[in-house]
């Protein structure tokens, strides 16, 4: 028995066939973000918004609903970073708590509208036929009509409230999601990996679940980001008009409307709510744009 120590063959093989060195996974994932500072800003805004939405009232330094605890119309100071409103409520605390309303609303639109819409879009893009035709034509009719009149009509029927607003915005998201994902699925179904999976005997259901959906996940994220932007804007606008959430509830749109009467004397009662809405929507837009640029440079700059 030869007991001579042999050089470890595996090590040799490794050096012989070594792949080009790759940067660590984390760095590879982070690189596009570092190259797109605007996208990174968007990502940070979105993360801060979600944290504020989940923890909001717990982080607030004052009770957002407490009346008369502080003097009215205080200018921004160290104790009240955004000042106080016409009822002496702390605007900073109300802003933090208002994030929860926007986050809940966006999540509802995502769950009730965008996700079913995406599923519908993938199926109709993949299988086609008359269902596809019907969905696309209804979507075109819906988007051709201005959204605010639709909302006003539904509100005239069922009365003001967040429920009507959620339903109308969610229907819009169903059509938006189905149009985006249908286009993606149409391209995806002709790709080689689908052909390969099919020739290996994969059923259509299996191909959709295991191959197509994971491959188009990034597009779903892009769509979700822009749906969130639209939802936050819609909730704020409708609540501003007094057609959404109940008065007194902390919410950016309704609180801005509440301060409007005295805004020329005390601009801070509207300024911070408006800025926060703008920044959050901007965050979702930047995030969506950057995700799309990373995914598909050909689409750069398009909507």
């Amino acid at each position: 028995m030869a007991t001579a120590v042999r050089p470890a063959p595996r090590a040799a093989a490794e050096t012989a066939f070594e792949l080009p060195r790759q940067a660590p996974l984390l760095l590879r994932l982070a690189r596009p973000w570092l190259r797109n500072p605007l996208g990174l800003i968007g990502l940070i805004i979105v993360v801060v918004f979600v944290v504020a939405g989940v923890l909001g009232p717990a982080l607030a330094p004052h009770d957002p609903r407490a009346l008369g605890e502080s003097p009215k119309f205080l200018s921004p100071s160290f104790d009240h970073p955004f000042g106080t409103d016409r009822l002496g409520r702390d605007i900073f605390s109300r802003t933090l708590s208002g994030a929860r309303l926007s986050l809940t609303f966006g999540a509802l639109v995502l769950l009730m509208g965008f996700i079913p819409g995406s599923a519908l879009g993938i199926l109709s893009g993949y299988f086609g036929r008359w269902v596809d035709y019907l969905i696309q034509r209804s979507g075109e009719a819906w988007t051709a009509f201005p959204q605010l009149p639709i909302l006003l009509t539904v509100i005239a029927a069922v009365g003001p409230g967040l429920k009507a607003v959620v339903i109308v915005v969610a229907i819009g998201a169903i059509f938006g999601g189905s149009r985006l994902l249908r286009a993606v699925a149409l391209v995806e179904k002709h790709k080689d990996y689908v052909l390969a999976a099919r020739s290996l005997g994969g059923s259509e259901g299996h191909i959709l679940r295991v191959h197509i959906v994971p491959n188009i996940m990034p597009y779903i994220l892009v769509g979700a980001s822009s749906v969130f932007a639209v939802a936050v804007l819609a909730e704020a606008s409708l609540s501003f008009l007094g057609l959404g959430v109940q008065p007194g509830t902390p919410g950016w749109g309704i609180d801005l409307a509440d301060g409007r009467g005295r805004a020329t004397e005390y601009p801070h009662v509207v300024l911070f709510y408006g800025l926060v809405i703008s920044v959050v929507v901007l965050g979702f837009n930047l995030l969506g744009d950057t995700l799309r640029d990373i995914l598909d440079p050909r689409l750069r700059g398009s909507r």
Partner: protein
Amino acid sequence: MLRYTLRRLSWLPIILFGVSLIAFVVLRTLPGQDPATAIAGQGATPEQIQQLRDQLGLERPIFPISVTRTAVVVPAFHVHAHSQYSEWIGNLVRGDFSREFYSKKPIRDEFKRRFFPSFELVAMSLSISAVIGIAFGILSAVYRNSWLDYVVRLTAVIGASVPEFFLLTLLIVIPSRVWNYSMPVGGYVAPWEDLGRNLRLFVPAALVLGFAGSAGLMRLVRTTMLEVLRADYVRTARAKGLSGRVVVLEHALRNSATPILTALGTSFVAIFGGSVIAEVILSIQGLGLWFFTAAQQRDLTVIQFLVVYTAFVVVIVNLIVDLSYAWLDPRVRYN
């Protein structure tokens, strides 16, 4: 071209009929507060409410045909001679727009009074949006990756993110704080009566709506132009020594006209919706404010009328967009 226009126009009554039917279903059959109870107020007795319902015609069947479940499997169909829907649509076809639900004022008079302020606001905003969107979209594409391009692109994203109601609120707050100038709020003066006052009311509002509407347009014009500027015929045009201006305006812009027109249509729809918010904030007595107050008061006849009117406008605008495709692009015309 004429035949195409006529064929498209023949769809108009069908679409309006469908929209009116949907509006009726939404407004009259969805569960909500009874309009009669709403007007009668809190102290009303059930008899008073019932009387009001009779007066308003709410007791009559809603649609000319109704279906009820029977003990047998086959449902029973009922035909009603004087349904709410058939009366309303019959009057509408004859040119009678009915009356407001509560005040009983003729809708036609109110519409005439409120049409022009809204028309002026939307037309002005759309022109501003088209000028800003197309001009800066082109500049941004031609001077790609310059500081101008970055400013335009950032402005476009910001314009799509800042809510219109916030900009309009600032429109009142900022001039008052900085220049001690208060925006004229409410009160409409026709341009032929007092042009100065008219413009003082409309120009700032139209600038805000136009800016918000131009955001999407700028991005689209930029992308389309970038694609077209890469085309062979643009290279040929440059190679034969045409000036940059001629290449961009004559060759590139003309060839990107169709997507730009589509985007203008979309921009119109956005501005049309945004004008409601502007009219509410600035108390402009236009159609948008009417729609808003009618929705709050559940004035069903006004809403029905305005929904059909909106559908009419949307269909006509889409028709204009499609006809201008044909006008601009011979390939569409000869197909």
